[in-house]
Structure formats: C-alpha cells, structure tokens
C-alpha cells in the first residue's frame, strides 16, 4: 500500500559550521506532512524556517536524523523540483536582472522533459499574471529592476502558477503585498490546491495568515518545533510561551498593542 506521506522528518537536524561556531538551524524536528495538507510553519526570523524549507527542497541535507520525501531520501534535485517548487522571500534574488520578466516566466517550463506548445506556454503565462493581479501588458518588455518589490513578489507567485507543482513550499510569499492582494493570492492558491490537489507548506511569521489557510500549524523557535496542532488548538489554547508571545505581538485592531 502506498502511504500518503509527503514529508517525514524523524529527529532531523540541519547544522552549519563546526565546534564553537556550530549552529543547529534545524534542531531535532519530528513531523509528518500528508498529501494535500496545508501546513504552516510559524516563527520569528532566524528560527530556522527557511533552512527547513530548503531541506524540503533538497537544498540542505539532514546532518542527523531522517528526512524523507514520499518515504525516500531526496537525491536528484532535477527530478525533485519537477514535483516540489518554492516561492521565496526575496523576489529580486530569484530573477535574472538582465532578462525581461516575461521571458523568465516562460523559461520556467524548462524544468519539464516535455514542454507544452508555445501557444499554451504563452497562455499559461498570461493566466498566471492575471492570477496575481498584473495585466500582461504592464510587464511586457519590462526588466525586474523596473518593478517595485511587491510587484516582483507577485512575479514569483506567477511563476508558481505557471508551473503548477505537486508540492509548494511558500516561504513568506505574501509578506510584501497588501491585504487585498494577499487575500487574492490565498484565494488563487486555494483554487490551485483544489484543482491540482497540491500540498502546501506555508512559511510565515504571521500567525493570522497561518490560522486562516492551514490544516495544521507548526510553531518554530530556535530550530525546534515547539508546538504542533490545528489552527484552533494553537491559537485558542497555546501551550508554549513562545506561541503566546507570537500571538500577542500581532497588531490586532481590536486590542491594545503598544500605546498602553
């Protein structure tokens, strides 16, 4: 029988450096992520979220413990990336500054063995741009440096909508867009998830966002997953002081936040 495990981590560690300079960026984490699940990983900056994301992408191997994709260790990147794709925090580092955006979106098809027809590729690029609220005419002939940071972030998402992967690792994809665009992106991701039966790992420091999108939330702190549960469990009855802190630090409009 085939299991429905997408990611399985058992006492996984990912460390950098040696001796006194050793950093355990991901420190002894154990979890399962099942097919078609949406799991959010929430924590402050530097807690190890991106390193964990890179493990999922096969960009870092576990220094200790087990880390499996569909019950097997990740070996071949090229094969892995046909199924598992990512959107990253820093949009500018992900696009080549010297090529027009549109060409780069189209070039994303390069990871496939069999590319669709040119017409279909162009159509999918148009659809993807519209999905992230950008008129295709607006980026026609434009280079990355001619767009604002938030617009670039949307280009990264457009790339995902072009590729339609099986598993999406989204590392703070909405941190630079406004609430309407965020709601839109979330809507579209949910639609994509329905259509493609995608598994999504959402990485964010915004527990409000995690609460809304996820089936389960993992709270990370200093490399460890200190709490796992459903959105209601984690937000309504948090067990860890770090979870409580994260909740308190959100500037909710209906609660005093700073001006005491």
């Amino acid at each position, binding site marked *: 029988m085939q299991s429905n495990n997408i990611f399985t981590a058992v006492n996984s560690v990912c460390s950098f450096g040696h001796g006194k300079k050793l950093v355990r960026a991901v420190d002894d984490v154990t979890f399962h992520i099942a097919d078609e699940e949406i799991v959010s990983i929430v924590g402050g900056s530097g807690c190890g979220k991106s390193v964990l994301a890179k493990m999922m992408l096969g960009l870092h191997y576990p220094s200790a413990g087990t880390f499996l994709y569909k019950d097997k260790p990740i070996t071949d990147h090229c094969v892995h990336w046909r199924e598992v794709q990512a959107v990253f925090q820093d949009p500018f580092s992900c696009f080549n500054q010297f090529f027009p955006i549109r060409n780069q979106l189209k070039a994303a098809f390069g990871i496939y063995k069999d590319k669709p027809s040119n017409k279909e590729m162009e159509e999918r690029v148009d659809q993807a741009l519209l999905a992230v609220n950008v008129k295709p005419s607006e980026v026609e002939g434009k280079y990355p440096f001619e767009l604002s940071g938030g617009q670039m972030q949307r280009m990264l998402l457009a790339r995902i909508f072009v590729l339609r992967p099986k598993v999406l690792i989204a590392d703070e994809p909405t941190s630079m867009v406004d609430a309407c665009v965020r709601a*839109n992106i979330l809507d579209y991701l949910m639609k994509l998830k329905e259509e493609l039966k995608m598994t999504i790992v959402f990485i964010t420091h915004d527990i409000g966002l995690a609460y809304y999108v996820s089936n389960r939330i993992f709270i990370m702190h200093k490399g460890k997953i200190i709490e796992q549960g459903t959105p209601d469990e984690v937000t309504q009855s948090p067990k860890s002081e770090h979870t409580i802190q994260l909740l308190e630090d959100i*500037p909710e409009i209906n609660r005093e936040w700073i001006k005491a």
Partner: protein
Amino acid sequence: MAIFEVEKLGLHYLTRFGQKIHAVTDVSFSMDQGEILGIAGESGCGKSTLVNGLMGLFIPPLYPTCGDVRVDGESLMNRTPEDVRQNVLSRKVSMIPQGAFNALNPTRKVKDIAADVMAAHMKGIDKKQIYERLIERFNLFGMDTKRVLNSHPIQLTAGERQRSVIGISTLLNPQMVIADEPTSALDVTTQKVVIKMIFDLLEKGIFSTMIFITHELPLLRHVADNIAIMYAGEIVEKGTAEQVVFDPRHPYTKALMGAMLSAEPGQKQRKPTAIEGAPPNLAKPIEGCRFAERCPSAKPECKQKKQEIRIVGDRQVRCDYAE
C-alpha cells in the same frame, strides 16, 4: 501651524522608452508639529515614489510633474539633490528609506557609518566628540551599545540593523522623520520592538513629527494619529486613524479592511474579501475613477468621471458615492 505642506504634488518616471509613468498624482496634505501620519496602500501604489518627492529628491528617472512641497514654509522643489541633502535632509526632515537596513555598507562598522553622517553635517566636530555622542545616543535604544556600534551590519540581527538605521537617521534631531515601510520586512516580534523604539524617540523629543509608510493598514491603528490611503498614485481617503480603520468610507479602504486576516477567535470562518483585477496602468492617461474597474459598488459613470476629494463623515474621500 503646519510644518509640512504638500500641494497638488504630481511625480513621474521617464522610462527608457520615453514613456511617462505617473506614479503620484494630485497629492495634497499638511502636517502639524507632533503629528504622526500613516500612509498605507498596496505595493506599487506610489508610496516610495511619494517619499522621494516629499524629500525633494529627484534623481532620474524620477521627475516632478507639478505641485509643491514646503518644510517650514520653504519649498523643496527646483533644487539640486546636493542642496537638498546638505540643507534639508537629516536636519529638518530625515528619511528612513525602504530596505535601508539591508543596504548598509557591509564593509564598515555601524559606528563609522554613523560617524560619517555626523561629520558631514557638523563642521569642526572631532572624532572623540562624535563617538561620545554616538554612545550616548545609542544607549537610549535598549541594545548592547558597544557591540552594536563595533559590529559590521551583517553581524547584527535584522531588528538591530533597523534600530541602528533609525538611530543614525535621527542623530541630528530632525524635526520630522519619513519612514518608508520600516517594519515590513521584519517579523511581528521585531516589528513591535522597532515601533517601541520609535515611540521612545518621540517621547524623548528626539523628533516630533513622522510619516509612517506601510502596506499594513491595521498596524497604523496603533501607530498613527491620521491615516491616508493611497491607490494608484492618489490619496483616496484621509482621516483620523479611528475613522479610517473602524469606519472606512472609500470602497478601496473598505476592501483593505475586509481583506484583513486575524487570529482572533471566530475569525477563521470569515472569508477575507479579495478584489479581482489590477490597478490601472499608470503610463496611460486615466479618465475616471482609478478604482472603478475593481470597485464592487462602481456606477457606469465612474469610469468616465474623475473623482475629486470631498468631505464625507468628517474626513476626505475621493469618491462621489461614498457616504
């Protein structure tokens, strides 16, 4: 008396193709001493462009189209960037550019970056005096002063870097600070630390007046006295923080508030409203209301009729049908 006045300001970029992108149009407001004005709007709506315009910093391809900006009654328009840098920036108005904390010179220590700013503006001050002033000032920020000052930017956390940037930007006690998304790239905990620091500086009288720019409208409820909402280069609503957050009148502001996500109990069932479509292309002339194409309550005439600011429920709204 208003210390900062902006009158019908328009700004455009001139692209490689000779195309004009009208990134900011018809922006007018004034600020009193001690006021904190929040400006919110989605990315690409012209916030950073406006910041440059407000500082009189016109570096190609950015150009003023029309209008005026006055600090203490003195216009910033038609001046060279050098003149503005020397006579206005840092002393009267200080800017914290978007992403500045990631753009600090990586080869220099924080204390040297800071010392340069002081040396450039205070003739005749010697190194020893500079470092004494620096230590005194950085001691206010609740950080490990010695370590931070002696570090290269890369050795600091994002929060420490941003607090250093704010510290450096306010070294000369400017009257006013314009902060462009100072917390947008930070996690919620660090954001709170940075905003606490800003309030601390306000309380200590290091500066008194601030424009705080963000794409997160809910945050402004806790930061600003007044809020202006920008859409496609225009201010579409301006009122007190309470008015704009709890009782928005412009359809775009309503949509922004409706799209808010919250981890408060019972919020998971509430579906945040997403609005379809995209802001208009600013390279083309726009006849009617800029939000009309996406507005859930648009009337047929909205696409043709230019909307002007009018007063609705005690605040400014750029919509003929807002009530």
